[in-house]
């Protein structure tokens, strides 16, 4: 009997433990992903997009701003890293840093222009500016390669104490990316758990009230937007190094749409939800497109069903179910 009781109740507990210490479990899970995915490049793709979705969620999930233009920060990060590596200094650390910085600067400037609007106006404005950047990159062929994309990004070796790390070997590259992902997870976790993180959620729940408590809510939102942009830029920079190529589509609105889908699929209310969403989305896309060329229909149906029946996303639903069972 005792065993049965334990058996019935282990998984809500596990879910609780996981959601109490999401970071520990994400990091543990990271070590398994490359070995359970059909191929290593997919695992790398998942953690890069997971990072992007996580950055996006600072905007959508924590502050309640539905941005439809995050392709801009991802794309600008990609192009900056690529261009810096090609033209300025072939040093990966510097390149990635510049990508992140440029993502933040772009978010700072566009944020200033968009942040005072709310709801649908905010979504349309962010999307319009993102498309503006897309067309700019499309026409500026000398710098970006235009429609053909940015090529010839050098594969510069990364050394540690004089020892070549051979990071372009698939599994090593995964861990190289993972290093950045873990650093940003720690940083984001610190930010969102801090009083500032609480203010973000206060703004999301009731902005006038947060305002009347003395918070400069516009600036708070702006800062959240910049943080979100810098993480997106970092993800973009990693993506550029991952493929040695930046496609013009990385700036297109479909990229923005994809990150929104991932975030909603995984659950925007939680810290790790977006990561899970990115994993599920990319895995399904990969699996379904191998089976049928009409994979989009199936992915679309899954997405619609998720939004209709599990509005809290995959992770949110698991969490809700487990707490309900416990009572």
């Amino acid at each position: 009997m005792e065993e049965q009781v334990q058996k019935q109740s282990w998984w809500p507990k596990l879910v609780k433990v996981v959601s109490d210490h999401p970071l520990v479990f994400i990091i543990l899970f990271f070590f398994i992903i490359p070995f359970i995915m059909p191929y290593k490049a997919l695992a790398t793709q998942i953690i890069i997009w997971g990072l992007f979705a996580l950055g996006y969620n600072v905007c959508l999930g924590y502050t309640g701003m539905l941005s439809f233009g995050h392709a801009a920060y991802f794309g600008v990060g990609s192009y900056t890293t690529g261009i810096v590596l090609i033209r300025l200094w072939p040093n990966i650390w510097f390149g990635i840093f510049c990508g992140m910085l440029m993502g933040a600067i772009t978010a700072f400037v566009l944020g200033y222009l968009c942040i005072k609007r709310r709801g649908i106006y905010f979504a349309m404005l962010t999307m319009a500016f993102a498309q503006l950047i897309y067309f700019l990159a499309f026409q500026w062929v000398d710098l970006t390669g235009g429609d053909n994309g940015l090529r010839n990004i050098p594969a510069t070796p990364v050394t540690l104490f004089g020892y070549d790390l051979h990071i372009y070997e698939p599994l090593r590259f995964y861990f190289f990316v993972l290093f950045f992902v873990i650093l940003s997870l720690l940083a984001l976790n610190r930010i969102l758990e801090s009083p500032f993180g609480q203010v973000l959620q206060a703004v999301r729940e009731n902005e006038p009230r947060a305002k009347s408590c003395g918070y400069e809510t516009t600036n708070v939102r702006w800062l959240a937007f910049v943080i979100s942009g810098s993480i997106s830029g970092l993800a973009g920079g990693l993506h550029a190094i991952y493929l040695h190529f930046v496609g013009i589509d990385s700036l297109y609105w479909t990229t923005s749409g994809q990150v929104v889908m991932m975030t909603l699929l995984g659950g925007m209310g939680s810290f790790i939800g977006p990561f899970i969403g990115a994993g599920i989305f990319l895995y399904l896309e990969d699996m379904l497109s191998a089976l049928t060329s009409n994979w989009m229909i199936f992915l679309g149906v899954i997405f619609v069903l998720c939004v209709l029946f599990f509005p809290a996303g995959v992770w949110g639903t698991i969490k809700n179910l487990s707490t309900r069972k416990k009572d």
Partner: protein
Amino acid sequence: MAEGKKEQVTQSGIDRRTFIKTTGIVTGSVLLGGFHFVRLSQAQDTGPIKVGFPIPLTGPYGTEAKDQQAGAELAIAQINAKGGILGRKVELLVRDTKLNAAEAARRAKELIESEHVHIMSGVLSAANQLAVNEQCKLHGIPYVSVSQANEITQRPDNSIYTYHEAMDPHMTTQAVGEYVAKKYGKKWYFLTSDYAYGWQMTDGFIRRGKEYGAKSVGETKHPLGTSDYSSYMPRILAAKPDVLFLNNFGKDQINSAKQATAFGLKKKMQIVCPILLMSSRLGGGEEPFDGVIGGTSFYWEMNHPTAKEFVAAFQKANGRPPIDYAGYAYGGVKEILMGVERAGSLDPTKLAEAIEGRTYDNYKGPQWWRPCDHQSQQDVFIIKSKKAKAEYDVFQIIQTVSGKGERLLRTCIEVGQNPSKPIRSGLIEKK
């Protein structure tokens, strides 16, 4: 197992310090320890020879992609029937790129890193080709490209690993421009899709036109994916050109041809589509393309022994005649595999030596590999759309523009190569 883990975690009750310590240790070991159990992947020397073939099966070029696949499959089936290459069977690995360059790059990466393909081919659209080419250059995999692009044979994109079996936009404009200048008058108007492909077309025509005294009387650039061209038509009519070039592709070409027909432009000028695809003609119908001329690398009714053999074999396997993209894929895949057979190994330098400077005739007449940039020199056919007597009987070849003596190609110096030396850039020293 899960239970044990849970117990540990709950009982120890991770506080912030232990948490930071653990994550610190974990992160450190990611960088150092994690690397030790990795071995560098090795190329397989036994088993089948694998050919990676990423193509845009979903998306607007799905029809062409399916023909690419059928062409490559035919080439490989024929080679396997004769005992394979170097005594090994050949295997084709197809992947969907969704006509997205980043996706194409990722698929190529997967094929190289996880499937360990020996040779890469396929891909449609310039951007996708260049993205896949990047991956191939990085890993030292020979890549025979079977769709049009100028950049792929140009520095810094090309390398010893890059081969371009298809025509490039420049060749097309030189051949079509020459024919049009001689036959249809010297006042040219361009309706151009506003991106690299369209610009390259216009530049190529203006350059060729100058040699024959033809000049541009105007150009209208339209955004990619425009559906309404009616506002452009009065300007074109007012410029009174002899020839209207539609420098666009796919749906845009069909829509602009339809509206040009509706506005009665055909009565006043000749309409030219530089690249006239059978799939566009079948998709757009007879009316809009009636009397339109254009260039192509291959048309299935052409009268040439190797072409007839290829068409017969393709029709037997697929129940329909091949389009030009099937021809590229068939010719390209066959040529590189036969190159491996002659070279006796997959060594990139030996393979290049076995292919460079070779004259071959796989499906359309004599072709020649230029050593300095690995571009295939070939004839271009001028075709005219006609009233169809049967389902696939849609064009008539009105002229063969010879490609002999590099007359349609950019010079080696123009593409950034040394004319007297074969291309050896990008060669990776294997340990």
